[in-house]
């Protein structure tokens, strides 16, 4: 694994993300920023050559679904991060960056709002490390095992919150359904008006 830039350089870049990259991504007829166009420009700047519109088709979202907006906002933030001088000067990261933006942020978008990857130091570090790992790099001054451990520790925090809720779910579901079934057999409470 090659050595990349210092982690602090990347987290600082995230903290300084300009407002343009935080504007509303376009979904169907709503929003301002064409995420596909932003990614296409980025890939060119990273030395990827002219980009076929199909390559960035995944970022042209028409239907509003639960996590698509947060994912697109993360992609825009990721695009800002990957436009870092160090990556551009290397001139070889376009394919890995495309893969990272297409698939590397999907899971994260389910758990954490994109805003926190700008404002929260831990989330900035998580995003920076995810990016480096996706590009096959370790932060400058770290061994690969050390970098992997740190990323794992950061990533587990947010996921554990939802996973913990999921773990208790089955027992809770069974109990609640039993309670509701038992109540269904009883009378409820009188209403002055019935729907």
């Amino acid at each position: 694994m090659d050595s990349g830039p210092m982690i602090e350089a990347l987290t600082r870049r995230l903290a300084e993300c300009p407002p343009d990259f935080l504007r509303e991504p376009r979904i169907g007829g709503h929003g301002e920023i064409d995420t596909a166009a932003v990614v296409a420009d980025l890939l060119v700047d990273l030395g990827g050559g002219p980009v076929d519109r199909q390559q960035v088709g995944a970022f042209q979202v028409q239907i509003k679904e639960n996590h698509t907006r947060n994912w697109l906002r993360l992609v825009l933030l990721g695009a800002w991060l990957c436009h870092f001088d160090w990556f551009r000067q290397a001139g070889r990261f376009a394919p890995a960056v495309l893969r990272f933006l297409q698939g590397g942020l999907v899971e994260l978008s389910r758990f954490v709002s994109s805003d926190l990857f700008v404002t929260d130091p831990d989330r900035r570090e998580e995003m920076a490390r995810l990016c480096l790992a996706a590009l096959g790099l370790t932060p400058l001054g770290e061994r690969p095992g050390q970098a992997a451990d740190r990323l794992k520790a950061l990533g587990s925090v947010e996921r554990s919150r939802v996973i913990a809720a999921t773990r208790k779910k089955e027992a809770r579901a069974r109990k609640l359904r039993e309670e509701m079934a038992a109540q269904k057999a009883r009378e409820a409470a009188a209403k002055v008006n019935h729907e």
Partner: protein
Amino acid sequence: MSEFNESGAPLDRLERSPLITGAGYRMLRRIQEHPRAPRWNYVVGDRLVAEDLEAVDRFRRTVFENRASRPGLPPPEIMDRVRMWIETIPLFLERLPRGFDLERDWVHVPTMSREDVAVRPEDIVPPQADRSRLIVYDTSGTTGHALVVPFHPRAIAKNHALMELVLARYGLRPEFKPGTMACINVAARAHTVVYPMVFSVWNQAGFAKVNFHPRVWPDPQNARGFFSDLAPGFVTGDPVGLAEMMRWDIEVRPAALVSTAVELGAGLRDRLARRYGCPVIDWYSTTETGPLAYACPAGRGMHVISPDLHVEALDPEGWPAPEDQPGELAVTGGRNPFLPLLRYRTGDFGRIETGPCPCGDPMPRIMDLSGRGLVLFRAADGSRVNPVDVGRTLRRFVLVQHEFLQRADGSCRVKIRPAPGLPPDPEAVRDALIDLFGAGAAVEVVVDEGLGRGDSDRKVVPYRSEIEAPD
């Protein structure tokens, strides 16, 4: 043998109505044992305790005093509750990432649907909620989803304050006292519960739910005597029940008639108003949300009834509908601790208007409300069948959703979507419906696993009739 306390009420009554007094129990018995009473088939109480009355008092003050027009975002009190929900309730944890900015991104909050409530209540009932006083209501309602809705008796009691508010908006301030009949709720169905009650939240005043059906009241003369003797302060009911009250020639002088469940047509409203010489108020409510809106006294649509509700009109993807176009009404807030509503799609449609209203109520108005159209079916012998009875029949089976159609020739087709892993018995469903529509009724049952799934262009219409619409 039952035991008694100071009120004279037996223990089983005290369990149902813990706050009943001696005067209340005497009133209950007067209704229950009235010589012209219907054939009661149900026993129920209000299940309220002293703290509930205090909570209803506080709620009453809020509802009367905190009325305001707030276009755009939900008010801060609702927003605070939503903020808590998205940190604790599994459905919202799953749908909203941590750090979601509610104020800035409200239009991006995913909507919830009746299907969520039907299929995964365990992800909606707050994990930390004390369920010791949980009660449930079941319904098959306007989208055809079989639904068991968890509720709290205190939330139901608050409906009384909302009724007082609506009556007050029409200049009526009924005095509730022991020994008087506050209200009678009327229905006209093949099957429904029929019971007497006294409400502790209304100072032990009486109440009865009755059904204009020969099985319940074989002699209409008795129904007339029951109403004239008890003289309810006001009468509530669905339009079919209210129309039947008129057809049975019930002589009563209520301060108001309050119509619920389905849309009240202008023709019926005017006839009722003329016949009973009182305001006829349309009241918009669903089982899941409770009361939502009431007809503006100045005729400007329906005012959102309570400041703890935020109502929006949305397009199919959840974006706000353009101001001049109707959208699906979605509700946030409410007062049911077991069913937090976050942009809950009601299946009904309308436009939201804000700004001053000649009636003086500053609360937003729902204009052109639709989706609650009255549908009636005919039995094999030509008598009316209420969709509520069809829903009640189908609820005996474990179904996720249904779509019932009666064609012009009287034949019926019901599409059913079974619950996962529970194969239905179409023959049993057919037999149950023939039981309702009468021998000789043609009923076809179609199992449709895809009903209501994945085709946003086609909303499931649970009840449709091609036979001529009733007057």
